[in-house]
């Protein structure tokens, strides 16, 4: 066994790892003064570290911590109707409203688009601008809702905020739908 290998095994020994080469290692340590010195020095150092005394905890250590935290932080609050039910209910309601609109007034007459736009490209450009405005508006809305702290309990947390956004968005598109029907078919909706 050479000293490099012995050095690795010495470290493994102090890791508490049982090795098949342990006998060979101790034989090498007997024969090699350098490795013997390294082993003894490491043994002393590690034993000294392990036997270091614990420090005395200052008085009122725990009290200072407990006074700094809100012990009710994770207290369970009275829940209203779960938000997911609000989302599902709103989506179903919006769907029924749109089905009612379709039955009552029909759908958007796409040929009616050309009353207001000279070409399909112009219409597409218009909708692109509207999409961009809508995206910026929604981003601003989401950032604003993030700082709302006192939402009613059934709008609990960010899921509740998304629900509010969803409601506004659905209401917006229903409104657009009605306007487009009015513009393209001439119906008074």
């Amino acid at each position, binding site marked *: 066994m050479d000293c490099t290998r012995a050095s690795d095994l010495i*470290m493994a020994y*102090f*890791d508490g790892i049982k090795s098949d080469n342990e006998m060979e290692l101790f034989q090498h340590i007997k024969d090699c003064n350098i490795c013997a010195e*390294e082993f003894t*020095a*490491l043994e*002393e*150092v*590690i034993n*000294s*570290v*392990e036997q*270091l*005394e*614990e*420090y005395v*905890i*200052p008085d009122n*250590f*725990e009290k*200072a*911590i*407990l006074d*700094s*935290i*809100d*012990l*009710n*932080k*994770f*207290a*369970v609050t009275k829940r209203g109707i779960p938000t997911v039910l609000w989302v599902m209910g709103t989506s179903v309601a919006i769907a029924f409203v749109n089905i009612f609109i379709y039955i009552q007034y029909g759908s958007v007459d796409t040929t009616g688009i050309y009353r207001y736009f000279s070409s399909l490209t112009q219409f597409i450009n218009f909708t692109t601008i509207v999409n961009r405005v809508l995206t910026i508006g929604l981003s601003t809305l989401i950032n604003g809702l993030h700082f709302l702290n006192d939402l009613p309990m059934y709008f609990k947390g960010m899921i509740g905020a998304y629900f509010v956004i969803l409601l506004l968005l659905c209401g917006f598109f229903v409104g657009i739908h009605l306007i487009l029907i009015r513009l393209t078919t001439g119906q008074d909706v």
Partner: protein
Amino acid sequence: METTDQEIIQKILQGQGELYEEIINRYKNGVYSLCMRMLRNNEDARDLAQDAFIKAYQNLDKYNPEYKFSTWIFRVASNLCVDYLRKTKTQNLPYDDKISMPHDTASAEDMYMHSDNKKEIEKAIQDLPDEYRVLIILYHKEGLSYEEMGEVLKLPMSKVKNRLYRARNRLKDALKDIRREESSWTAQELQI
């Protein structure tokens, strides 16, 4: 049968916040000891140890119960210590000025101090670079495994192992240097 850390934390997250005191009592010694050995200052160590528990509580809902809580709290504490040392740019200050002041008279009390192995090992630990010191303390004093240290320090296990080996060698060499310095100082003083 003692309640496990995970069981206590589960109850805290269900609203029994007062049980956090039990968690503090279980780990205050180890955390304070780590901070004290890293910072070498009572007040700073106390403040950072308390900050570690406060930070752990604030983020208790993010704690992953698959890992031991001890690993988690030690990670918080060691990160706070390392950040603090970086900000204050604290270099390894001598643990005890008397040891490095050969001009003092060799009183019996000094002789006792200089031959005190505990002081020497404390100084040798203090002289280690921060990243080595934390490994020595966590492994040999707090009893963490390689895997746990890897989680605490966010390092792969192989790197933890290599660094610990280097830390041990540096500690061994540092202790040798301290003793050599003391021997020559003591010999000088005794000749006066």
